[in-house]
């Protein structure tokens, strides 16, 4: 299983979109997450530790954006959700799971 450590991307996660500033959630998703998912599917672990902190916009765009942009299926999202880890702040992993779940349910509503 591949492990992605956010701290290897940046120590200071930034805003939601690229045009707002460096190391954004959008950039992390497009540069790191999407290529890794293309290669390994949902079978990857995301390690959130080692950074200075996260704004919720960064996390929402990085993970919720995967579903909105259809880079990941609902099954892959469920698998990914169970592989988010943060020992420093376990509530972060919960938060990311909620973004994945919310984005999944919204995309299903749009489909219906």
């Amino acid at each position, binding site marked *: 299983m591949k492990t992605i450590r956010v701290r290897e991307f940046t120590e200071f996660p*930034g*805003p*939601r979109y690229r045009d707002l*500033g460096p190391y954004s959630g959008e950039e992390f998703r497009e540069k790191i997450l999407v290529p890794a998912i293309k290669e390994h599917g949902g079978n990857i672990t995301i390690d959130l530790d080692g950074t*200075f902190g996260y*704004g*919720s*916009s960064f996390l929402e765009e990085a993970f919720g954006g995967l579903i909105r942009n259809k880079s990941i299926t609902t099954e892959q999202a469920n698998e990914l959700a169970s592989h988010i880890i943060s020992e420093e702040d376990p509530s972060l992993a919960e938060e990311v799971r909620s973004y994945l779940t919310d984005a999944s349910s919204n995309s299903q509503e749009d489909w219906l």
Partner: protein
Amino acid sequence: MKKASIDKELKNKIDQKRHWRTVRNGTEERRQRLNNKRSRRQKAKSDGWHDEVKAPPLINLYDEKDHERTVDFLKSLRRAVSRSKKVRICFRDTKQITVSAGLLFISELDRLVRAFPDVKFSCIRPPVQHSSKFGNETYTVEAVLNQIGFFQLTKIKQRQLPIYPNVSCWKHSQGTVAEGEIAGKLLNHVDNELSPAAKRRLYRGAIEAISNCVDHAYPSARPDGLDLDDKRWWMFVGIMMGRLVVAVCDLGVGIPTTVPQKHSWDKIRVVLEKLKLKGTRDSEMIHASTYLRSSRTEQSHRGKGGKDIRDLLNHYPGARLTIYSNKGCFHDKNTTLLTGQKYKVGALNEQKKSILGTIIEWSVPLEELAA
């Protein structure tokens, strides 16, 4: 010869001569005097004439009177810098500079210096204060100006001053994009004893506030008549009276203007009704903005910044949040009842004059952050 013995005709002649000499000399003297005055004035205008702006005794936004004086001072500063070549800022009466007002002042000055680089600044330094206990001389206000970069910005010579620990920890920075590294380094600089969890929470609020500045604060020109294109944000971190203070400021159109642009009125009305507010005042719109999220049709995944900005209050019982935007001010804090139950208190203040921007300020007791 006795006076009485002078011939009357001769006396008249002498008097007349004297009279005309006085008139002649007087006119000449007067002309000379006026000429000198005119040349002195012209010389002063070309050499050392300054447009003087007087800073108020308290550069402060917390109190209603000080708020008005501070806003007037900043207005005079804008007017002077945009119209004159030389500006003198007089701090003769200034006894205190508080965090939000200091940040607003330095942001305003920074913006003006960038827009009018040829203006030369001078200043009358703040008075030396004497401590009430031992009468020691203290230069606190000048040290604050020093620390917030006033002298560096205006290129006025900086004096060597004693080090005041409660001032030397103040740090500020600015940027045009939401760069987390700037915020992180400021938080790191101020106090190494902060717990990692505290840093994460402070960082979360700060990066969201900065992102909001970049994303929403500057949809159109600031209504100050200068029509400048400067879309920066400024951030301050410091310790004051045992509390860590973090403030983020922008000189944009303000929350009361951007809220109706970002959200539908139906949605705003629902929040206002829930909060039992009319929405006619700036402070009410600020309060409403902290609860507004974009509706489903307007991208439901967005609008989480308000939650992050309020988040510190849920974690630290002594935390305070203050948001100034245009004429409005919204204070929020946690209060613990004797029963141990926590409840939030929100207070709204409406001022007479607009700061023409937004400041978000958090303050948390240091002992709570170190835990």
